[in-house]
Structures are given as structure tokens and as C-alpha cells.
């Protein structure tokens, strides 16, 4: 049984075909990496899955039910959580309260007291515990990203959609976040993860889906994807070129430094 | 009853409604400030023209030009004193700041002018068009409204200042970072809105008697018009004003006059519900 099936989904904005005929199955417990060039339609796919946009065509089947046309809150109650690429903290609430909203209104429908406990646990988990009483608006970008994460985790989702949670973190912090993601997966939460930080997403994904101009151009394991010429051309860039570029730069800086 | 007469009268007053609303929707659309001193400023415009006419003996239309210039300055001063400090605070703060300005203007105005009605005893006669008797002052006002709308439109959409105004309204900090003097632009926008309100008041004064409290009516109408035409769009305000004028003019043909506001505001709410972006579908 798949936890999520996307079947032939298409979504248009005016003249722009943001998604065309996207199909993908996600089995429970898996981490699906979703990559693709900027504007490929990744975020739009998330928005279709959780009910923010209604697709013109296709079905989204979550836990066996077609959820097209359902409101986002219905999906949240069914156990779907997401983070936002462009963070959306509830600015005038404290960090803890932000997370409590996730816990209270998510799949578990918790009482305030329980939610507060869960919030503290989750904040600990994403290393924001000491900021719990601060207003969410005063966090910096990286912290806000972790807050997004905490909020959606607190809902105890069955399916978690992560939209570029690694962006804006430095390599050390990325490594920590990757650990967190892995940890979540051990707790039976299925994850779809949009990411541009390749080495990280390659490390954690079971399968990867690549979108380009709204169309799926490749699907497979990370190593298959990494070597897929179509993907390299559209998205990763010529890796030999990258190496060459780096070397050239290094040489150049060495030269000017003399 | 001649339906045509109702229609023409409504149409003509609609132009004035339009220009009265323009200042409000400009400030609102551009600065995201709901200006509760709008009505009071319209009244100041009326008194400006009245005083120029009664005390200085100036022609009312000259008075309107002076009022417009004074309005621009007054608006910029009001902005600097009362609004700039809270422009980044939650939007209720600016609402209340303008409400306070309203209280100050009305308070001083009442103490000084009383609520006695004033009248600019000025007429350009009227022309007969079939069954309809049209005052020339209203025709002039209509033409003037069109001209003002045109120039404002040009200013907002064709000059760099207009674009700056829209940029500042959209993202103040970014505008500042791009080298746009946001404080000045905001003051200018408020000044423009005030100028328009003053001009509208001045025009109204050429054909209606008024008191220090008269602006309130136009303020509420301006809200309605803003919604009809879409907020922040001068052409929308003019068309919204005309629609409202026609509605008010024509409704009494069909029903008792005292029921007109019921339909007027009922329709207003209905439009809000079904076309919140305005009948003209202005920008979101």
C-alpha cells in the first residue's frame, strides 16, 4: 500500500504549465528526494498535494483516499505536514506557541497541555529549546527553518513534506539537519524532501524524482539519478566543468595572493 | 417621471464622488493606510474655497487650485507629524493616528467655525438638455474630475515617482535599499491623497452648502467607491464613483428614497463578497 500516490497531476498558472502529468508513488517509510531546476514545479507539487492548489487534472491519493479538492486543514488532520520554502513563522507568537499550533491542530488533535510537552520535546530535537519563549519573529533565517521543521514534526505526521529545509545552513549545520531527518524516518514518518543541496539529499533519499519544466524527467535511486545524463544537463551541471571551475578559481586566488 | 433625468443627475454627481474617493484609495492602496481623516480633509477643502471666496473674493476655481497646493503641503506635514513614526507599526496604529488627526481638525474646526452651514454663493447658471436641467458647475466639476484622474494616472503609471510610490508601498525596506527615499515618497503620497481630498471638497463647495461635519458622508461613500473600483487605482475610483452616483440617482426612480442607503450598502457588501477585487478587477 502506498501512503501517497500522485496520478497524472497537471497544474497551470495562466499560460504557464507548472506541472504536467506528474505521477509518482511513495511507499510508507520512504524518503523521496525531489529535485529539479528553479521553477521546475517542485513547490507547486507540494501545494497540490496538501490542497493549497487544486490541479486541473489528475488525482492525489493520500492513505487510500483521493484528496483533490480537500482543504489543507483536512489534510493536516489526516496526517500530512509540510514546511515552507519561504518561511512563515507566526511572528507575534513565541517559538513554543508556534510549535504548539502544529501539535494541537495536527493529526493528533492534542490538548494544550500535551501540546506544550510535545513542543518542548520537538524544540529540543531541533535545537531551539533555549529560544522557546522568544517571539518567532526575532529568529534568524536558519532558526526559522528549524522552527518550520519543529512545527510540522509536532503534528506527528504520517507524511512530511520538507521544502528546502537545508537552504541557508552551513555544511556543519546541514550535517546536523540530515541526522534529524534520518531520525524522523526511523519513526515511521514518510518524507518527501525538496532540496538543492545535492550531497545531502543524495545521502538520505531512498528514491529521487527529478522535475524539469513541470515534467518528471527521471526517477530512481540517488546513484542512478546522479549519473543520468538528462539530470546532469538540466540540473546538476557538468560536474567535470564544476571541478575545473573550482580548480581554476583556486589557482587564480593563489596567484593574486602572491 | 423621466428616467433620463435621474440618470444624468446621478452621473454628474458620480464624477465628484469619484474624485472624493480617489485620495482615500490612493493613500490606502499605496501606503496601506486607511485614512480616517479623509472626511475632515475634504471639509478643509470646502472651507478653503469658501474662505478664499468669501474673505478674499477669489474665484472659486482659483480657490480650488490654491486649495490643491495647500493640500499637498498639509498632507506632507500631517504625514511627517502624525504618521511617519507609526508607518511600520501594525496597521491599526496608522488608522488611529489618522483618526486622531480627524479629531483634531474637527475639534478645532467646530470651535472656530461652529457647525453652521456655509455656502459659496456662486453659480454658472444651468443648461437645459431636453427634460434635464443641468448646473454648469456640475459639468465643470465632472470635466475637472476627468482631468485630475488623467493626470494622476499618468503620474502613477508613467513617471518614475509613480513607480517609486508603488515600490515603497510594496516593500519599504527594499525600496530604501534600492536608493529610493522612502520617507519622502510616503510623505508625497500622503500629500497627493490629501491634495485630491482637498480638491474634491473645493469642488463640492461650489454647488452644495456644507458644514464642518460634511466630509464624513463623503468618507463613507469613498470606502464604498474604493471597493467598487478597486483600491489604489485612480481610474477605478472615478468609475466606482460614477457607478455609485448613478445608483444613487436612479434608485429613487424605483423605490422610496429612504430605502436607497439600504440597497446601497447591501449591494456594497454583496460586491465585496463576490468581487472583493472590485468590479473592475484591479490588482490584488
Amino acid at each position, binding site marked *: 500500500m502506498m501512503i501517497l500516490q500522485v496520478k497524472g497531476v497537471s497544474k497551470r498558472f495562466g499560460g504557464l504549465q507548472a506541472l504536467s502529468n506528474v505521477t509518482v508513488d511513495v511507499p510508507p517509510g520512504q524518503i523521496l528526494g525531489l529535485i529539479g531546476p528553479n521553477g521546475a514545479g517542485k513547490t507547486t507539487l507540494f501545494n497540490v498535494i496538501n490542497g493549497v492548489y487544486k490541479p486541473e487534472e489528475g488525482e492525489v491519493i493520500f492513505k487510500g483516499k483521493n484528496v483533490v479538492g480537500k*482543504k*489543507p*486543514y483536512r489534510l*493536516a488532520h489526516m496526517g500530512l505536514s*509540510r514546511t*515552507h520554502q519561504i518561511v*512563515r513563522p*507566526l511572528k*507575534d507568537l513565541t517559538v513554543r*506557541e508556534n510549535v504548539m*499550533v*502544529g501539535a*494541537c*491542530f*495536527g493529526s493528533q488533535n492534542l*490538548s*494544550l*497541555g*500535551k*501540546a506544550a*510537552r510535545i513542543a518542548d*520535546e520537538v524544540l*529540543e*530535537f531541533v535545537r531551539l529549546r533555549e529560544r522557546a519563549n522568544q517571539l518567532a519573529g526575532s529568529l534568524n533565517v536558519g532558526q526559522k527553518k528549524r522552527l518550520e521543521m519543529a*512545527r510540522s514534526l509536532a*503534528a506527528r505526521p504520517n507524511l512530511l513534506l520538507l521544502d528546502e529545509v537545508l537552504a541557508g545552513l552551513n555544511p556543519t549545520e546541514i550535517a546536523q539537519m540530515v541526522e534529524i531527518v534520518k*531520525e524522523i524516518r526511523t*519513526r515511521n514518518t514518510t518524507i518527501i524532501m525538496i532540496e538543492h543541496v545535492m550531497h545531502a539529499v543524495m545521502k538520505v533519499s531512498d528514491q529521487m524524482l527529478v522535475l524539469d519544466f513541470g515534467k518528471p524527467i527521471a526517477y530512481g535511486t540517488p546513484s542512478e539519478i546522479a549519473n543520468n545524463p538528462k539530470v546532469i544537463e538540466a540540473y546538476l551541471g557538468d560536474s567535470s566543468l564544476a571541478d575545473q571551475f573550482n580548480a581554476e578559481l583556486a589557482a587564480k586566488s593563489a596567484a593574486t595572493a602572491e | 417621471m423621466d428616467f433620463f433625468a435621474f440618470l444624468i443627475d446621478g452621473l454628474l454627481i458620480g464624477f465628484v464622488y469619484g474624485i472624493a474617493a480617489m485620495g482615500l484609495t490612493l493613500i490606502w492602496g499605496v501606503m496601506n493606510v*486607511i485614512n480616517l481623516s479623509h472626511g475632515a480633509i475634504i471639509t478643509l477643502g470646502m472651507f478653503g474655497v469658501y474662505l478664499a471666496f468669501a474673505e478674499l473674493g477669489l474665484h472659486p476655481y482659483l480657490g480650488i487650485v490654491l486649495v490643491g497646493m495647500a493640500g499637498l503641503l498639509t498632507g506632507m506635514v500631517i504625514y511627517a507629524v*502624525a504618521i511617519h*513614526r*507609526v508607518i511600520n*507599526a501594525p496597521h491599526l496604529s496608522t*488608522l*488611529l*493616528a489618522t*483618526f*486622531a*488627526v*480627524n*479629531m*483634531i481638525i*474637527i*475639534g*478645532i474646526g*467646530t*470651535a472656530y467655525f461652529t457647525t453652521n452651514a456655509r455656502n459659496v454663493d456662486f453659480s454658472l447658471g444651468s443648461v437645459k438638455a431636453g427634460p434635464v436641467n443641468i448646473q454648469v458647475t456640475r459639468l465643470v466639476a465632472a470635466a475637472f474630475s476627468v482631468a485630475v484622474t488623467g493626470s494622476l494616472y499618468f503620474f502613477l503609471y508613467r513617471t518614475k515617482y509613480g513607480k517609486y510610490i508603488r515600490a515603497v508601498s510594496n516593500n519599504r525596506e527594499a525600496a530604501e535599499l534600492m536608493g529610493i527615499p522612502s520617507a519622502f515618497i510616503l510623505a508625497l503620497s500622503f500629500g497627493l491623497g490629501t491634495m485630491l481630498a482637498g480638491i474634491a471638497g473645493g469642488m463640492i463647495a461650489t454647488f452644495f452648502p456644507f458644514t464642518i461635519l460634511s466630509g464624513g458622508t463623503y468618507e*463613507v461613500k469613498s*470606502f464604498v467607491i474604493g471597493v467598487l473600483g478597486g483600491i489604489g487605482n485612480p481610474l477605478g475610483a472615478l468609475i466606482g464613483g460614477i457607478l455609485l452616483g448613478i445608483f444613487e440617482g436612479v434608485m429613487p426612480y424605483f423605490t*422610496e428614497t429612504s*430605502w436607497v*442607503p*439600504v440597497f*446601497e*450598502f*447591501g449591494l*456594497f*457588501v454583496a460586491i*465585496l*463578497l463576490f468581487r472583493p477585487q472590485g468590479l473592475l478587477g484591479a490588482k490584488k
Partner: protein
Amino acid sequence: MTTQGTDAKPQNELLNTLLDNFKIWTKKLSHPGLWITIVGVFILGYLPIADQSPEAAFANATARESTFTILMSIVLVSSLNILLGYTGYVSFGHIVFYGLGGYVGLYTIIEHQWPLWKAMAAGGAAAGVLALVLGSAILRLRGAYFALATIGINEAMRAFVSNYDPFGGAVGLSIHFRVYRETYGSYQDAFLVMYKAMLGLAIAAVVLSYLVKSSKFGLGLMAIREDEDASDIMGVIPYRSKIIAYMLSAILPGMVGVVFFFKASTIEPAAAFKLHTSIEWLVMIMLGGFGTIMGPVLGAYGYQNLRTILLTSEFFKNIQLAVAGLMLLGIILFIPAGLIGWLRRHISFTRRVLT
């Protein structure tokens, strides 16, 4: 999260839940801010009626009247704060509930000789129903558009009532003096009843706004205030929550309308649906501190006292409006977060006490 074992025993879960609930309620009800506010309002309201001897009653009459005005504002403003402060929706035309309540109440008193409490219930219910009906329509609007719709509704209602004969049309409704004597003995006694009703409503409003704020429902409202779409995605049901908040904020004002117009003995459309008054309510909320429990109370107290001073001072009464405007402007410019916000920011120990 990591320690949250899935293998925890069900009894433990139950126990935990009970314990949680108990903790929450004790914590909720022992918040000093709540009690300070309730006791404050009670003392404020009780002082002018403490001594019922005729001399004291006479001497305190003015205090009773001005306290009545303050209590009334506390109810109105605390209620509006549920919508404005928690949910973030600005209702300019909130007075429509007060006016409608007043009309329904006076109508039942005059036509059906209902006692005050029953009329209050009717006024509150009418306001609640109106909020439900209107809310389901206009709460689909956001931000300024909602605010405008509330103005439209108030104006439409005013115009409608001016033409509606059962409510006396433009002439309004008026209560015969005998009603007070026959039902309550004298107007004084009737007033005392109204006064106590208003005190009760004020305390009810404080408790209601506290309970809402400290509940899960309230948390949902505040999430809506901050970002409606994001809260939707997190599972808050915005539409339903907003309607409930709108109703909660309408019922008490409906009841206040009944009491006030019963006290005045007369109601006319222009007085019942005066837009300007609605805006004054916003002013009071902002003065005290928006989204807080004490803010509206302090705001109402401060604002109405200030108005009394200005209205009655020999020096200012000519230009009291302008002076009030100047003071308001000063406050907005220099303490934009309201009194409570300012205190919480500048005097740290108040953060625990003020709410």
C-alpha cells in the same frame, strides 16, 4: 519526541491526560493577571454602590454613572478584542451588534413587557445570530475588505431600521417612565439593577476573553491572526474559528446595547448605529494593548476617564475634541504597543503578572 515511547501503557496515557488537564486548569485559573483584572473590575464597580444609604447613594451618583460608562466600555472592548486582538480581524462596524441588541431588547420590553434579563438574553441572542449569518458571508473576506464590509453592514442596518416600522422607523422606540416604577419600584432601583447587570457583564467579558485566549481555540485564533494560510496548512480551520470568534465578540455587545438603551429609555437609529463609536472602541483597545486581557480593561478605563475630564473641565470643554485628538496622537506615536505592551517591554517583572 525521542523519549515519547510508542509502547507506553494506555493507563499511563489516560493518567497523563488527566494530569495534564488538571495542570492546565490550575495553571490557567491561577494566573495572577486574570485575578488582578477580575478583582480590579469588581472593586471599580463595587465602590460606587457599596454604601446604599440615601446620602451616600446621592453623593456617589456621579461616580456610579461614570463607572457605568467604563464598565460598559470594558464589556464592549473586551469582546471586540476577541475578534480584533486575537483573530486580527478589524471590525469597524461592531456597533451593529450593540445597536441591534438595543433594538431587540427595547422591543421586547415595550411590546412584550419582558424583564431586563430576558430582554438582555434576547438582545445577546439576536446579536449572536446576526454574527453567525453575517460572519458566514463576510468572514470569507480578509483584512481591509472585511473591515469595510462591517462598515457597509452597519450602515445598511441603520438605514434599514430607519425604515422598519416595528422598530419605530426613524422615530425609534421609547420606554414610558412608568415601566421603571412598576417593575423596579423607582428609576433609581432600576438603575441599580442595570448597574449590577453591567458589572456582571464586565466580569463575564474579562473571564470570557481570558478563557478564549488561554484555550486551544484561542491559540488557533492567534495563529490565524499571524498567518491565516499557514495556520490552515497546520490544521486550524480558519473559517469556522473565525465565525465562532465573531459570535463570541458579538453576544455581549448585544446585551450591553439592551442595558444601555433601557437606561436611556429611548433608541433611535442614529444613536444605535453610530459608526464613530465603533472607532472609539478600537482606540480603547489600542490604548490598553491589543490582544491582551488587561489591555482593553485599562484602555476603557483610561480613555473614558480622560474623556470625562476633558468634557467637564472648564478649560477644555470648548476644544475638548481637539485636545483628546492630540493626546490620542501622542499616545499612539509614543507608546504604540499600548499600555500593557509598554509595561511588559519596559518593566520586566510585569511580564509574569500582566496578561
